């Protein structure tokens, strides 16, 4: 099997989409936060919290969709903490975000171990199964790729459209974009800068939590410490790659997923000649290169990282 054959194989693209799904949620969540002018480095911890909360809700008898709702609420709660610290209090967004990551991660582990103290192997739930949509699997190639996906991947793709539509086609989206570019103007219009930013961070964090929930409720069926494994941080880079645009965010997530799906296959093929670490490094190196090329022209929200205080000049 040579390289071309790998790329033309539908299972490769199915894997790409599976790997990309949590990143799509994460990058959309981060994008919503940053569009309003606030960086949310709590993402890695919110991923963990979403993964744990959603999974545990199902373990204790909730349905999968209720589990997702629990993940969304937990994600939003950690978002609210970040929002209060960074918006009305105007604290460092970096420090607060990292604080939220540490807090959310530790609380998740603590809750997991407290609720399930005596275990020798992690308990399993019945996760989302590939969605059987009539006629879809009859489309050549693409159909086979999509037929392997679960409802959460469809949800992620739908969210891309939804976020794009809200940001670019609604008055709410206009005010979110404005508050990330020029909060003074938003304030002059009589809109609440604090309200818009806090709302955007809470909603963005809820979306991030879905990315974590995907890992325990669709990609796998149990919760492990450390299973998020840096996926949140990748999303932060992907937002820059995406130049804060939902469509490009989808592209970036899929590109990263493709790099990763490609490296596992390549490692299998030519692992005898190169150390495995070279392949594992590849998606990150390629992402950095892509970032360097694309980010030079990125149009970032002008008020990003700048706290705003009412009445201050």
């Amino acid at each position, binding site marked *: *099997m040579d390289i071309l054959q790998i790329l033309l*194989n539908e*299972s*490769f693209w199915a*894997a790409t989409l*599976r*790997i990309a799904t949590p990143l799509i949620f994460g990058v959309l969540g981060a994008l919503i936060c940053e569009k309003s002018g606030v960086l949310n480095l709590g993402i890695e911890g919110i991923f963990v919290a979403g993964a744990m909360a959603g999974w545990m809700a199902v373990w204790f008898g909730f349905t999968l969709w209720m589990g997702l709702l629990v993940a969304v609420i937990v994600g939003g709660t950690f978002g609210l903490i970040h929002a209060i610290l960074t918006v009305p209090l105007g604290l460092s967004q970096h420090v607060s975000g990292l604080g939220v990551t540490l807090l959310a991660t530790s609380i998740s*582990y603590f809750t997991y*171990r407290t609720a399930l103290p005596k*275990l*020798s*192997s*992690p308990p*399993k739930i019945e996760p989302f199964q590939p969605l059987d949509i009539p006629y879809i699997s009859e489309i050549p190639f693409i159909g086979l790729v999509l037929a392997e996906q679960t409802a959460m991947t469809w949800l992620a793709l739908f969210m891309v459209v939804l976020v794009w539509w809200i940001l670019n086609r609604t008055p709410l989206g206009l005010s979110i974009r404005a508050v990330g570019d020029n909060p003074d103007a938003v304030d002059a219009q009589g809109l609440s800068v604090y309200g818009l930013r806090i709302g955007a961070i809470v909603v963005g964090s809820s979306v991030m939590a879905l990315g974590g929930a995907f*890992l325990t409720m669709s*990609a*796998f*069926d*149990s919760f*492990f*410490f*450390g*299973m998020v*494994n840096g996926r949140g941080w990748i999303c932060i880079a992907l937002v820059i790659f995406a130049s804060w645009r939902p469509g490009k965010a989808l592209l970036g997530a899929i590109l990263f997923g493709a790099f*990763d*799906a490609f490296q*596992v*296959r390549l*490692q*299998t*093929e*030519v*692992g*005898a*000649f190169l150390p*495995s*670490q070279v392949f*594992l490094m590849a998606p990150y190196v390629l992402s950095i290169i892509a970032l360097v090329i694309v980010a030079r022209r990125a149009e970032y929200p002008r008020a990003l990282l700048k706290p705003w205080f009412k009445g201050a000049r």
Partner: protein
Amino acid sequence: MKLPLILTRRGILAGAAMLSMLMSPISAMADEVKVAGIFTLPVDQQWISRIHIALDAAQDRGDIEYVYSENVSNTDYERVMREYAENGVNLIVGEVFGLERAARKVAADYPDIAFLMGSSFAPQAPNFSVFDNFIHEPAYLSGMIAGAASENNVIGMIGGYAIPEVNRLMNAFMEGARETNSDVSFLVNFIDSWYDPAKAKESSFAMMDAGADVMYAERFGVSDAAVERGMKAIGNVIDTSADYPNTILASAIWHMEATVDTAIKAVSNGSYSADDYGQYSFMAHGGGSLVLDESLVPADIVSLVKAKEAAIMDGSYTVVINDDAPVSDK
């Protein structure tokens, strides 16, 4: 106004001190060996769980008092070691693959405390003993079963990191598979994480796409992929056959009881010294065993494996220990 003692500052401090003494897990009963476990991963991780279960059993028998800290990062590990050492435990059990030098320094600072650590290096006098999961023997036997079961003659292997204790088992497994199937070839991947089941699963799918029909499940996630595609898998360290019905042909199981109990006995009779406890994971000491599913493995292979098992037990056959990183056949 004179406050009752319990509300004064001194009273509260004294109360808190007393309370912490009462709550302290390593106080009471002097004749029991006080053991602390320090693990870099959660106690339900495969490898750690084997140590944890053995120590739990010793506690249930009343031989030891056992406390543990899990998910301790390598950078924090030394502090936790010193904290337990200062608290007066007799024996510290853990794994120091990521901090060999620092851990040995701590052991040198507390010569009266026994250390029994998972390590890739030699023991250090007077008190630093080492162990590792030397279950290459059952791994070899499980390889024999995998080799016979592969119809495409391709076996996929997913490992965490390419470190000696992982490589050793993979190499023994591959040797075993070659014994029953001289045409077999291997696909080898490392995911550079102990805990990323989603990634392990994706790697497994990739290998199955490339023709693998038997998977060596070193990590969580591999057997899940095998179930989804209707392939077979070989377990490692723990027996997960109940979780993956009709999938796990056999598993090489690690038992830490022999290692832990030997160390506890040595500590309690004062004969503990720096030793290599690796041998207690060998089959002859009951440290390793093979479980196989006789409904999935043909009878002739079962008898072949049983014969080899007997040969290993009586010492007439020795499985080679090879710590080199395995690579895909091409």
